[in-house]
């Protein structure tokens, strides 16, 4: 009976061109939120476990702790040392991936779905999540590698600009703090164990499964992952970031090209302003080759190979960002053009033609957002982690269509105020 129902449902879906993806959601008996998309086309399975355990939770003076906890998580767990983990994964043809960003720490498994391949791979995944060793010698080695990488990054104009940009945007919020050689040196094994104990728990986890699996199997796998985690408590967020005051930071560097970032903290995930900002930004600098920034900076003047603007909503207000690279002697001219384009857009918003073009692309390209298991996984995991509505994808096109020029102007005037804009340049003459 269940089969029949599913078949009928599939038929219905294929008749409504705007329908998104069927994401099933439940809470596992052990308290983890689970998101499941059944996709039987290929004999493979993706499992991603996300924890609210990103760098926003790094204690002061210990920046880099979230990243180090995640990167050493799969370097020895339970009875398996780091070599056994990597070898056994390779033996089944599976991959273990993931990482930590500002909000989230992820552990992602891709495996063949045949039981004899899937089960050994899932065993390793559970080991890594439930019983990481945080071996002291391995931690020291990884600290040394991370410190070397940080020192190298501090010689690169794009990294220098990126770091300066984030610390200027978030002067009093953890989003603005970044790992340094000193903060990494300060990390001890106890810090990792405490961080893991606090944040890698069922209440703080969302588990996303996409692939060749029944609902029943998905329930079993999800619970086997959640049951081995401490019940725990969800993470508590710091106070929301404040809007910074306008500032210009100019850093020197011998590079041939200047790197320029302009932006501010703009919007958090799930905020209704997102759709007007998304649609508006398409015209401003999000629409690739057809955006105003691209036309003015690249096509008309040949100032840059890459120029863009985008909004990156995060758990708390994530950035609006404009970026470009240009010959160092023309950085000032390029920034002037960027400001003219931005100011003009803030004043008048898009034209009617531009608005229609933005909507045509954003709604028309919707199928391209969902045409692989990897993309389904990314979407379902973000919906789960950020607690977006389950019908977020179903509603996407209608929400884009509903946006008016006035919505865009108002949303931009709330979110992108010139008096809050941060500008960072590296290697500009």
């Amino acid at each position, binding site marked *: 009976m269940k089969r029949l129902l599913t078949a009928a449902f599939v038929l219905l879906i294929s008749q409504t061109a705007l329908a998104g993806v069927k994401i099933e959601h439940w809470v596992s008996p052990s308290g983890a939120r689970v998101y499941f998309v059944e996709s039987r086309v290929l004999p493979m399975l993706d499992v991603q476990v996300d924890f609210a355990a990103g760098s926003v939770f790094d204690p002061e003076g210990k920046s880099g702790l979230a990243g180090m906890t995640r990167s050493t998580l799969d370097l020895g767990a339970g009875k398996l040392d780091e070599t056994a983990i990597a070898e056994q994964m390779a033996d089944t*043809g599976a991959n273990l991936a993931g990482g930590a960003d500002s909000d989230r720490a992820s552990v992602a498994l*891709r495996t063949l779905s045949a039981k004899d391949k899937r089960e050994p791979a899932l065993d390793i995944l559970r080991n890594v999540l439930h019983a990481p060793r945080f071996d002291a010698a391995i931690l020291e080695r990884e600290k040394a590698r991370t410190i*070397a990488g940080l020192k190298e990054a501090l010689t690169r104009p794009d990294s220098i600009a990126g770091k300066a940009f984030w610390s200027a945007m978030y002067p009093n919020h953890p989003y603005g703090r970044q790992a340094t050689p000193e903060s990494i040196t300060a990390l001890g094994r106890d810090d990792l164990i405490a961080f893991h104990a606090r944040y890698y728990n069922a209440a703080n986890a969302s588990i996303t499964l996409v692939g060749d699996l029944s609902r029943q199997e998905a329930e079993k796998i999800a619970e086997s992952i959640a049951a081995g985690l401490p019940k725990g408590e969800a993470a508590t967020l710091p106070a929301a970031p404040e809007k910074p005051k306008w500032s210009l930071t100019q*850093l020197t560097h011998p590079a041939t090209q200047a790197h320029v970032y302009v932006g501010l903290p703009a919007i958090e995930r799930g905020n209704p302003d997102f759709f007007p900002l998304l649609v508006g930004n398409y015209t401003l600098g999000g629409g690739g080759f057809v955006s105003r920034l691209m036309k003015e900076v690249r096509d008309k003047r040949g100032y840059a190979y890459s120029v863009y603007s985008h909004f990156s909503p995060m758990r708390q207000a994530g950035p609006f960002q404009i970026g470009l690279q240009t010959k160092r002697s023309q950085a000032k001219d390029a920034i002037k053009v960027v400001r003219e384009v931005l100011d003009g857009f803030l004043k008048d918003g898009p034209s009617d033609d531009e608005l229609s073009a933005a909507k*045509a692309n954003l709604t028309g*390209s919707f199928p391209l957002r969902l045409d692989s298991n*990897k993309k389904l996984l990314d979407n379902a995991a973000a919906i789960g982690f950020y607690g977006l509505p389950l019908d977020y994808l179903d509603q996407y096109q209608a929400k884009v269509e509903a946006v008016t020029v006035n919505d865009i102007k108002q949303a931009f005037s709330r979110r992108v105020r010139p008096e809050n804009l941060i500008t960072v340049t590296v290697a500009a003459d």
Partner: protein
Amino acid sequence: MRLKYLLPVLLAAGLSTAASANPYETTLKNGLRVIVKEDRRAPTAVQMVWYRIGSTDEVDGASGVAHVLEHMMFKGTPSVGTGEFNKRVAAAGGRDNAFTSRDYTAYFQQVPKEKLPEMMQLEADRMRHLNVDAKEFAQEIKVVMEERRMRTDDNPQSKLFEQMNAVAFQAHPYRRPIIGWMNDLETMTAADAKAWYDTWYVPNNAYVVVTGDVDHKEVFALAEKYYAPLEGRALPLRKQQIEPAQEGTRKVTVKAPAELPVLIMGYKAPILRDIEKDSEPYALEMLAAILDGHDAARFNKKLVREDKVALSVGIDYDNTARGPGMLYLHGTPSEGKTAGELEAALRAEIAQVQKDGVSAQELKRAKAQLVAGQVYKLDSMFGQAMEIGQIEAVGLPYKKIDRMLEKLQKVTAAEVQAVAKKYFNDDALTIGLLDPQPLDGKARRPAVATRH
């Protein structure tokens, strides 16, 4: 749906010859080949147009023209105005771009399936009717110079790689960078780009690859409609250029602002020319997988994790190309270790394979990864089109992709040991070293922040 049931059968048979006719192929009267791989999993389609022309076909003084022309291809035709191409793809809900390599230049659009005909019309139009306007060229060449600054001039590792190839190859055009030398870009004219287009952009020098939720017969009919009216033309003779044998180690050092040294050891290596008869390129590919195929593969396990002589280490080897091949070992020494110590450690790993070979377990593991990878690759329509396009670009038939995988599965430990002995040969070695310089090395500007 069909795929799901077909795949396990294929895999069980060790990826033996597929009975299915998919992908499908036809050749138009003007010489344009059209290859269609149907994949009905989602209502999208990818069109790629591949031209058998890349930086390897350039001549001295005009390096970078293949890539500059790629940029100019978006600048309009008599019927599609400047900037209109991108606009139409965007209006169709599509994404598009292009890329230039040593061996080929390719253009693509990813679109909802019902927009494929319009994309085919657009690509057909610019295959023969491009405007190379001098004013547009004058702007676009600046963009390309910015691209070179970004990708190469300010990127110490790219610069090292560029210099290394310029030393490893002396006669063969692979010595020139794809993006072109800056001076060549500075002196290039619209007429150079136009001549390149007129010579090489003809249907008989191209092929179209379409993947996605399409019916091959419909795609063939569309190709007939849009591409068939274009006239083919004889291509200039391309003389084979053979790199003279290298007779001794070459060394190159690049100084650039950086914190860490980088070492690259590049060995001349064989390229797959005959899928059936060649064996060494397969063996070298399996060797690369055994040394660097996963986190506990030999290089990372020994050099990064156990001996801590390297912060990172890896191998690059592509066994398909139109020109000669190279196998690169590369890495960054740990703090307190020198590039010389890293080089000695890499050599010791190679010597061990030469002396003791590789284990059955290691070989089996590399093959298991290969089998799984064949399933994972089907997750991306774009990836499937890329695979077909790239293999055709080097003159190998896409129909033999499965056969190549079968040959890889048959590689023995003895063959791996034999190629290790043969190709890690100092006389065919080029060593590149990035010598890191302090940012304020020239003391021209202090590296301190100033706030206003």
